[in-house]
């Protein structure tokens, strides 16, 4: 087939394309991811018993803010990386800010605490399971984000995969906040970030394999 004939074929009665495909696809993926993550949460973890009381404490909301801010940035980054020719722009500069914020809070809390309490503030009671639980809860989001990107057109595959993973990790951490009893900034700034990093690294490694088009 000559190129002229190909163009003829592609341009014959082209199906109209409504705008907003990138947003719709990522929104659908987040919705399905949330459903999957909620099922995993119900099956394996359950919501913390004292959720109502905990939600009256400022630290509960600070704890939510970290994954929420990271999620907002990662969604913006993933959406940009799903389009050819769009750079990350200010998203890249914004990414470290929530991390530095929680580390600053952790630093203040650790300095103010008695030396004997510091290890307990860092390790909490659940450091062994926290990163893996976050990674587990992020898995449906990761599958969704890859599905979304496979229907779009990322051109920097490792970076796009990493942002898909970051988005999944932040969303998984957000869901995990409803289960997790830990309330120390040092704990959140260590084990939550580690949990979010697991799907991000997985996405970085899987991107070049799964996102080609």
């Amino acid at each position, binding site marked *: 087939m000559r190129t002229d004939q190909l163009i003829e074929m*592609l341009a014959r009665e082209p199906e*109209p394309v409504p705008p907003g495909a990138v947003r719709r696809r990522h929104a659908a993926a987040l919705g399905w991811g949330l459903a999957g993550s909620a099922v995993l949460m119900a099956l394996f973890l359950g919501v913390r018993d004292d959720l109502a009381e905990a939600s009256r404490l400022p630290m509960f909301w600070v704890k939510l803010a970290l994954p929420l801010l990271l999620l907002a940035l990662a969604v913006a980054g993933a959406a940009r990386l799903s*389009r050819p020719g769009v750079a990350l722009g200010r998203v890249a500069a914004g990414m470290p800010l929530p991390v530095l914020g929680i580390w600053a809070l952790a630093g203040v809390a650790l300095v103010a605490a008695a030396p004997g309490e510091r290890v307990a503030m860092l390790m909490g009671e659940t450091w062994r399971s926290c990163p893996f639980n976050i990674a587990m809860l992020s898995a449906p989001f990761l599958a969704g984000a890859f599905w979304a990107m496979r229907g779009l057109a990322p051109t920097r595959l490792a970076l796009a995969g990493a942002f898909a993973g970051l988005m999944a990790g932040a969303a998984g951490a957000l869901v995990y906040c409803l289960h997790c009893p830990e309330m120390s900034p040092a704990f959140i700034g260590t084990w939550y970030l580690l949990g979010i990093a697991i799907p991000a690294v997985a996405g970085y490694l899987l991107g070049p394999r799964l996102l080609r088009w």
Partner: protein
Amino acid sequence: MSAQEDQLKDLLVRGLSGDGAAYHAFLKALSAFLRAFLRPRLARVPDEVEDLVQETLLAIHNQRHTYDAAQPLTAWAHAIARYKMIDFLRRRAGREALDDPLEDVEEFLGAEETEAHEARRDIATLLAKLPDRYRLPILHMKLEGLSVAETAKATGMSESAVKVGVHRGLKALAALVRN
């Protein structure tokens, strides 16, 4: 160059809303830019330039929903052309190192080459390999110019299956082209 950007963008935006004539003009103009972009960069494999032009046109068609009218058309088309070229070179992996600097978005609409050479790979042959649920809708609608209703009647498929068949069929065709 910015006049070309505006003109091409206008054609694509109209094409995205279903204007076949504008979309044809867009693909036609773009193919000339693609050829001029790829030929010097693939100087060692001149025979494969037209294959890659066709592959890129098919990719641009299949991913056209990722274009946002707020975005420069040049940056979008250049990123796809560059991605397809690198993907092509990776597939030929190891044979030759890529020694071309890739910071060339500025010159993307700088030259045109309208003369198409023969493609080595025949898309029509690949089309024939698709399963009927993809092949027949593409054949009737995109090559013979039948309507959705006529295609549905001729194939016994439902109208929505015909539309989905064209859409998924062109994606499946792009996947065959890459292999």
